[in-house]
């Protein structure tokens, strides 16, 4: 294996209880491997299991059956603390709603991830400003989240996720609330981070604009992988 493996899913099944002892099977035996540096996306209709799958990969949830190995660790076997540590060190999340902590400034929101890692104050300042530069927001460092636009908010969320240089970024519908211009800007920033920092990205999306950037498209249908193909992104996008 020439490239480093980020994650490997082996026949992952997820069932949710729906009352009367019955279950709804959201994932029906998913097999998937993602290597370092990939820029991949889960696509598929609403309810096909994209978010459920991302949650399992992000160790926020665990599979009912099968094995999910992320960064060499079996998700099902992790304690609360260990899974928190896995998220803290290796995984960056970006959400549909950018979910910044409203009482903190842009700078502090990004800084928080590093406080959790016990990074020193001077080192934090350096890295937070660096991350804000990546997303082009160094001038907004002292603003509160309610004083910035939606596109800027999502860029802060990217900075917050990337500041700790995670191995994999999980982005659940990151452009769903953005207009076309902002969506493209976000995707270009993420592609650049993918290229410059060799960060692995896994998206969930049904946004055509996002798909145009992807190098690998994994199509989910009713909790199963219907198609998994490498694609050549259209570099000509403005």
């Amino acid at each position: 294996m020439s490239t480093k493996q980020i994650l490997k899913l082996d026949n992952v099944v997820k069932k949710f209880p729906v009352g009367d002892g019955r279950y709804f099977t959201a994932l029906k035996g998913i097999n998937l491997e993602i290597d370092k540096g990939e820029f991949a996306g889960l696509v598929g209709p609403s309810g096909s299991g994209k978010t459920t799958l991302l949650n399992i990969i992000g160790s926020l949830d665990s599979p009912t059956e099968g094995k999910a190995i992320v960064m060499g660790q079996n998700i099902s076997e992790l304690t609360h603390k260990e899974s928190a540590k896995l998220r803290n060190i290796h995984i960056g999340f970006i959400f549909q709603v950018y979910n910044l902590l409203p009482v903190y400034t842009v700078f502090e929101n990004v800084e928080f991830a590093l406080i959790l890692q016990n990074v020193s104050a001077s080192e934090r300042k350096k890295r937070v400003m660096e991350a804000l530069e990546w997303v082009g927001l160094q001038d907004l460092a002292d603003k509160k989240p309610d004083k910035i636009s939606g596109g800027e908010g999502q860029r802060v969320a990217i900075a917050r996720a990337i500041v700790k240089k995670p191995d994999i970024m999980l982005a659940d519908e990151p452009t769903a609330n953005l207009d076309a211009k902002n969506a493209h800007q976000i995707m270009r920033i993420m592609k650049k981070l993918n290229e410059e920092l060799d960060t692995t990205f896994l998206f969930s999306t049904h946004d055509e604009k996002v798909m145009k950037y992807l190098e690998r498209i994994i199509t989910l249908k009713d909790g199963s992988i219907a198609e998994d193909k490498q694609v050549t992104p259209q570099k000509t996008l403005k």
Partner: protein
Amino acid sequence: MIKFLFKGIIRDSSRSVLPIIIISLGVALTVLLSGYITGMMGDTIDQNARFETGHVKVMTKAYAENKDQVPIDLALLGVDSLVKSLQNEFPDMEWVKRIRFGGLIDVPDEQGETKGQGPASGLAIELLSTKNNEVERLNLKSSLVTGSLPTQRSEAIIGHEFAEKLRISIGDSVTYFGTSMNGSMTFANFVVTGTIRFGIASMDKGAIIVDVWDAQQMLDMEDGAGEILGFLNTGVYDDEKAEKVKNAFNSKHTGNKDEFAPVMLKLRNQNNLDGLLTYVDLASGLFVAIFVFAMSLVLWNTGLIAGLRRYNEFGIRLALGESKGGIYRTLVYEAILIGIIGSFVGTAIGLGLTYYLQVVGIDVSGYMDQANIMMPSTLRAKVTPSLFYIGFIPGLFAMVFGNMLAGIGIYRRETATLFKELEV
């Protein structure tokens, strides 16, 4: 992290203002109540000691058993040598003789006819002796309303209200009628040199204060006294020391079955003060406990509401890699921070109010007419060092306990559920 949490608390007023107000109120009340009780008890004890009980008191056994009736026929005799031996044995204390007596004061006009008459409770102290602190102890100088203190025998000071009622002026001669130690009628004349007001209901009603020597003559009580009071030189009642002195003294007289044998009681054993002190300890302990409980309930609820509002934040923090335990811990830290802030504010307010009540006081003389405990007619709070920290106990405890209960909700929820709420 603490600094980070602190910023959050300060900026998110909904997270801090209500709890801080609740804690401040509770803490302020705790401090005030505690200061009030300490002040009241301190004053009460102090006053009892000065006017009635001493830090310890020696009487005959029979006198001790009937002391409410002021039985001068049961007084101690041979008190000069008894006082000397007490002074030798307990040199760090002051020992003074006092005689309580009751009788009638008659005020004659120029013709010698009765102008006014009233029952008086008399107190004889070592007024003319310079070897003791009785004058200071009873605050006689500053309690004088008119006139001056006696400087020679056969002079007396009397209660100001009493003097007004009987229309006595300074320099008037009054006659005391009563029973002597051996039961015969006796009388004596006194020149009134001053009138006095102590601010103690039970003392101001009808008092006459004379020198012990005069009382001994008048009551046929040569070398006798109803009571010998002992005061620790520090001036402050110390129950342990008093207990030691009492035991040392009484152990010498245990074999003596004579009802005129001397017996020593400490302050706590007199005037129901033991019961009062115990009761006050219990009541204030109970009060603080109820407070902590009630405040915890309220703070639990505010914690729950604040927590619900913050599930979104908790979800983000979980995603960023904080563990549930970590989030729970930060909630406790926040509670400690808020508890400290609230306790600070509350303590400041409480100290302010306590100080106000220390200076101004509450006049309760109207309620004191029937009281058989000697209490000051103006109750004053007292700012003591313990007030600076006592409020932190309920303040911190209630906040932390309330929030620990509230925070359990985080553990109950699945990580994925907390997280799901982010997607809205």
